């Protein structure tokens, strides 16, 4: 198979799910449920296969196709290209793989809801594939919106559940507002340069000196991606949406949609602004943003008793780590983050699905109220603890490998505090998950009625969560199969020989705007340069991974043992607890607050990029 054929497959990865979704809509209520399930899984597996072929071809150089056959002449074109380098093709594969697992898990889910769920999931798939493959700024916006529309509807799908619809609305309003500001940014950039393609824009910007307009355009365009990526202070919608969306939808939200936000931001940065805006300015903005996001996410995660919200905040914490890694603006850091994100997708998705199993069995997801409920579920508890430890960074899971590579990249880029942040954040998020596991599966700690009030009134607990399935007496095998597949994926990233090398290669291509422009505009396929550095296990990385896991276990044990610490110790903790409560109060569920933070965040980002000189 030539790379030409592979190029033809890219539009199909977008079109096939749309066509099947149309079929489902046209068939209306006439398709029996298992046919819908089968169609859904088959379609996403087909997209998997298409993405896999594109991925193998993109290893030799980027795969490019021009829609409508508007190939560029002398480097200019009116058309829209789809471009796959190893990173975007890999992401496309990850998207389709997660979608397959989610649909496999939701086999026999939602029996009453016609084809809506399946059709929306397939449109969501099409939107994400289009977003990741597109090589045009406005086209990215369109697919961003498609992804958004499907996601808002999927979030609100449980219409019997009061929180669900509100979460969907907050999600929709904040994301749309961000997207409109970004569109204004695209308009500004278009006015100056008269181009929309990433590669031609990048070329035009190379010829111009970066001025205020360029920086403003960068900040404003990147805003919608950062909203999607839930970087603080754009993150407020995420726990609301994740906490209420059905578990298989959360898999896609946490596993890949949020990461797509970062992908978009850094794809646009590298291909369009990479040569014009000084890299130090970007580091000066994104390193602090990443660390802040990681810390806020980790603290909020540890403070939750609603299991899905806990996992959602853990996603925010990890996104913070990813942002920090990508903000090194080195191929090494990018490779580490790609590894980390791929493994995190598997592990976090498995956790969401396990919480889904709990929800199906017990009808709510409140950690304290579930105390001891899972004592009979031996097999599930092993899966849960494995995933929890993997989240904390236990070698040989891929999360540990990604974490260690990113830590090293940070240290080498002159940020020796990096590993400390990574260890602390992994320990806190992993600790929160393990703590819940200890309570639920081991029955550790005092039972809730002995431990004081179950929940503080001013926060969302998981008690009101509604079942997503009929009450299940036995959990279907397909659900376990999906969980096992995801965990195995998270493990494979760390264990497979050559995985590190492949990610190095992908990162090298991603951070090379010149090669990108040459391949897109002139069809020349310069071989992606061989990586300077090999991402692999190091002694230091293994040790740090073990340290963060051990710290997570200790934190979890401490939290379970002493839910009510003695007064003397509480007094010492009081300032900390008070500030944590203040941070918590900011997450108010009020959409007006979120919109205000959005504008404030844009201003702050612009100030960081434009004002703060940082020597990196």
């Amino acid at each position, binding site marked *: 198979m030539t790379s030409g054929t592979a190029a033809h497959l890219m539009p199909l990865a977008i079109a096939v799910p749309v066509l099947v979704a149309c079929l489902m809509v046209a068939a209306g209520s006439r398709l029996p449920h298992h046919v819908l399930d089968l169609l859904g899984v088959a379609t996403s597996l087909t997209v998997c296969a298409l993405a896999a072929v594109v991925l193998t071809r993109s290893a030799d150089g980027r795969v490019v196709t021009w829609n409508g056959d508007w190939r560029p002449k002398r480097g200019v074109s009116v058309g829209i290209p789809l471009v796959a380098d190893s990173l975007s093709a890999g992401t496309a594969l990850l998207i389709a793989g997660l979608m397959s697992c989610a649909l496999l898990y939701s086999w026999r889910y939602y029996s009453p809801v016609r084809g809506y769920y399946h059709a929306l999931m397939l449109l969501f798939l099409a939107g994400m594939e289009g977003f990741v493959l597109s090589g045009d700024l*406005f086209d990215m916006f*369109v697919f961003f*919106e498609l992804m*958004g*529309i499907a996601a*808002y*509807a999927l979030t*609100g799908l449980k*219409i*019997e*559940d*009061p*929180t669900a*619809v*509100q*979460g*969907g*609305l*907050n999600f*929709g*309003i904040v994301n*749309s*507002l961000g997207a*409109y*500001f970004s*569109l*204004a940014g695209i*308009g*500004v950039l*278009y*006015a100056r340069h008269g181009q*929309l393609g990433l590669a031609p824009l990048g070329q035009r910007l190379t010829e111009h000196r970066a001025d205020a307009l360029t920086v403003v355009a960068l900040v404003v365009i990147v805003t919608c991606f950062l909203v999607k990526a839930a970087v603080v202070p754009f993150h407020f919608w995420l*726990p*609301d949406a994740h*906490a*209420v969306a059905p578990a298989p939808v959360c898999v896609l939200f946490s596993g890949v949609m949020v990461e797509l936000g970062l992908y978009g931001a850094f794809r646009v940065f590298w291909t369009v602004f990479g040569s014009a805006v000084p890299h130090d300015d970007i580091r000066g903005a994104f390193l602090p943003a990443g660390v802040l996001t990681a810390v806020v996410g980790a603290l909020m995660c540890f*403070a*939750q008793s609603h299991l899905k*919200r806990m996992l959602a905040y853990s996603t925010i914490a990890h996104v913070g780590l990813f942002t920090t890694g990508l903000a090194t603006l080195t191929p090494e850091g990018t490779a580490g983050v790609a590894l980390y994100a791929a493994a995190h997708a598997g592990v976090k998705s498995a956790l969401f699905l396990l919480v889904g199993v709990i929800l199906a069995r017990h009808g709510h997801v409140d950690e304290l109220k579930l105390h001891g409920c899972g004592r009979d579920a031996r097999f599930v508890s092993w899966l849960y603890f494995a995933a929890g430890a993997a989240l904390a960074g236990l070698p040989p899971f891929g999360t540990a490998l990604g974490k260690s590579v990113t830590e090293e990249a940070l240290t080498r880029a002159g940020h020796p505090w990096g590993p400390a942040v990574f260890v602390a954040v992994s320990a806190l998020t992993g600790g929160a998950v393990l703590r819940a596991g200890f309570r639920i599966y081991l029955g550790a700690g005092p039972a809730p009625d002995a431990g004081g009030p179950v929940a*503080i009134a*001013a*926060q*969302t607990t998981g008690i*009101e969560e509604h079942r997503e399935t009929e009450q299940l007496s036995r959990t279907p095998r397909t659900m376990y199969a999906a969980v096992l597949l995801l965990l195995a994926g998270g493990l494979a990233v760390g264990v497979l020989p050559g995985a590190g090398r492949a990610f190095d290669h992908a990162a090298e291509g991603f951070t090379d705007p010149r090669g990108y422009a040459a391949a897109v505009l002139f069809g020349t396929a310069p071989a992606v340069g061989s990586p300077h550095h090999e991402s692999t296990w190091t002694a230091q990385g293994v040790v740090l991974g073990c340290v963060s896991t051990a710290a997570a276990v200790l934190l979890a044990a401490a939290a379970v043992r002493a839910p009510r610490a003695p007064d003397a110790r509480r007094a010492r903790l009081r300032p900390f607890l008070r500030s944590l409560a203040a941070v*918590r*109060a900011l*997450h*108010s*569920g*009020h*959409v*007006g607050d979120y*919109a*205000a933070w*959005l*504008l404030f965040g844009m201003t702050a980002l612009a100030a960081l990029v434009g004002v703060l000189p940082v020597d990196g």
Partner: protein
Amino acid sequence: MNLYAYGVAGWLLLVGAFGVVRSANLVHAVVSLSVAQSGTYVLLLCVGYQRAAGAPVFGSTLRPSTRVTDPVVQAMTLTDIVVSATVTALLLATAVQVHKQQGTVDPNRLSALKG
């Protein structure tokens, strides 16, 4: 002229955002959001405008050699309008559901999601 024409677009964006921030009714918030989006239409069309040029629709009165305004921004605006209508529809449907579940659409009184 730059500041005025584009400023109107920026003003609409900010005013729409303001509406979302101070809204006491989710329907009002959704409508304000659509006002913010109309700021992007105005911006795009102003970007594409050219003095003394016709619309990019050729026909009996306009030969392909005449100067026309930028068709690309107009195509983008068309897409944008479609997005606006569909997002508004979806969010309104969601607001109706919120009202059904919680009996109010005042964000100050919605309390399901906190912390």
